[in-house]
């Protein structure tokens, strides 16, 4: 969405306005997210899982796609949010919306604490550190079985009906509507953020971390801030999963989940806001279909898909689409 349109003449203000304008494709996309209610009512459960994963991928996009911070341990925050919501509900408070706030606070606080380490490193070191932190949180949850239920999962999660009215039904109607609204609101926040001066600074850090201090930018403070916001958002995604499924297992903190969300974001295209959402749709629908065909070897196809995308679409599916539309526009003008 940040593709430059070198059409001068109208002045700097309208140029910047043009950069952040809502495109009709965006509006069409969000309208299309409502179609599962009508066209695929039996897939609403899957649709809500996709919306939750998309929100998780969006949170990763904020740090990876915009600030260039690689993470292989982002599930730590997703899982913290899930456990926070699950544990609080187990002990008697199951109001879904306030649980989201609690989850965001817990994950955000953890993210803020970790950000002091994160802001000091880049590239390979960052991969190792986030991987290590992710494993650390996973094992901590595993050993604290008195609190988390350990490998058996958290027992006794009890979520109240949404707004005291809508129960989380078997078909996923409430779950999908709820996750979709949450995703859309988080998306609005993310969209505003990346179009703000702060978002511009993040892109500066991604584009050239050496130049940033030379223009007087406090890069580390910026990184700490976005990492905290991203962690809180991941925590909300985790809480949504806990609420819509009424279970929390150790899987929410697993390395697999961290790796999956990274794959999803790269598949869709990092640094484009919609990349994580599109990636989640492709990845999870593919998983659903492939695992139906062959439940044991579906990762084979995911692997093939990933290699193909990286080889032919280095900027993800959205990157490929943007290139296509740019060349089409050039031809037609």
């Amino acid at each position: 969405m940040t593709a430059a349109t070198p059409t001068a003449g109208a002045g700097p203000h309208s140029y910047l306005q043009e950069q952040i304008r809502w495109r009709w494709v965006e509006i069409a996309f969000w309208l299309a997210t409502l179609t599962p209610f009508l066209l695929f009512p039996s897939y609403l459960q899957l649709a809500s899982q996709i919306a939750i994963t998309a929100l998780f991928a969006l949170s990763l996009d904020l740090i990876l796609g915009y600030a260039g911070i690689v993470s292989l341990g982002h599930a730590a925050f997703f899982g913290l949010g899930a456990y926070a919501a699950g544990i609080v509900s187990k002990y008697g408070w199951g109001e879904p919306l306030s649980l989201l706030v609690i989850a965001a606070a817990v994950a955000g606080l953890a993210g803020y604490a970790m950000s002091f380490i994160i802001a000091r490193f880049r590239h390979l070191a960052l991969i190792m550190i986030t991987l290590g932190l992710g494993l650390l949180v996973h094992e901590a949850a595993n050993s604290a079985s008195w609190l988390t239920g350990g490998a058996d999962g958290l027992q006794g999660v009890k979520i109240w009906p949404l707004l005291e009215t809508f129960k989380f039904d078997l078909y996923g109607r409430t779950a999908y509507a709820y996750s979709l609204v949450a995703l859309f609101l988080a998306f609005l926040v993310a969209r505003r953020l990346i179009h703000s001066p702060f978002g511009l600074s993040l892109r500066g850090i991604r584009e050239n971390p050496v130049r940033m201090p030379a223009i007087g930018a406090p890069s580390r403070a910026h990184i700490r801030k976005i990492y905290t916001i991203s962690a809180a958002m991941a925590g909300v995604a985790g809480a949504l999963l806990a609420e819509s499924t009424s279970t929390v297992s150790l899987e929410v903190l697993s390395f697999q989940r961290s790796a999956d969300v990274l794959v999803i974001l790269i598949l869709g295209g990092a640094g484009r806001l919609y990349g994580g959402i599109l990636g989640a749709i492709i990845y999870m629908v593919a998983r659903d279909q492939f695992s139906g065909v062959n439940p044991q070897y579906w990762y084979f196809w995911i692997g093939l898909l990933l290699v193909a995308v990286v080889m032919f679409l280095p900027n993800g599916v959205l990157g490929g689409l943007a290139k296509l539309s740019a060349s089409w526009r050039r031809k037609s003008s």
Partner: protein
Amino acid sequence: MAAQVVVTAPAVGTTKPVVDATMPVVDATLPILSTRGLDKSFGSLVVASGIDFALPQGVRYALIGPNGAGKTTLINLMTGMLRPDAGQIFLGEHEITSLRPAERVKRGLVRTFQINTLFPHLSALEAVTLAVCERRGDAGTWWRRLPAYRDAVDEAYGILSSLNLGHDCYRLTRELAYGQQRLLEIALALATRPKVLLLDEPAAGVPRDESPALFAAISGLSQDITVLFIEHDMGIVFRFASRIIVMVGGRVLVEGTPEEIAADARVREVYLGQKRHG
């Protein structure tokens, strides 16, 4: 510090810069940027040794010397990208030796880079707006849209226009012509409102016939900005510098007006065979 002032200050009044004759004599009592006994070595390689100098405000200084003389190292030391082994750095009367690079920029000591150090996928306008927002302290705000900062955008556009980049400022940095990228280097530095601007070979890689235009832009900068530039083309140096520092082997060999430098026997010796001037 007083001892250094004596070394540099008297010469200022008698300088006859080719380009500009409006030197602020009043401020010459206090150098805007000075160093005292700067040492730096990488293992056994000494890249800076006992460097003392003082820049009076508003001068256009050239820093010259053969390759490996330690010119870029000196800029790295002054801007905090390298830590000196010994010595002190002062901006005005404040010691800045232990400040981080970004903090030095906030206080007005700003550099550009010999090799383009830009933001490839930001448009020129976005890049300069970013620098303006960072200076104004707006860069931490994430809930307001960028276009709402009309005056920051206007300022960025004004800087770009003053460097003849107004027309192309909507292009991505990586799509700009090389010479335009060199100008964008300077535009980014100007957006921080520097007191002292250190230009590391601003014309590096620019075709020889285009570099006078680039230096004309530099010499057209406000006299409130003190400029130190590294440059190898002696024609350019003698045309645009009001004073010259010659470095050799990590040391300051001599410092003076272009006339003094041109007449200096030691400098002739260093540049024997490579002299392009006169």
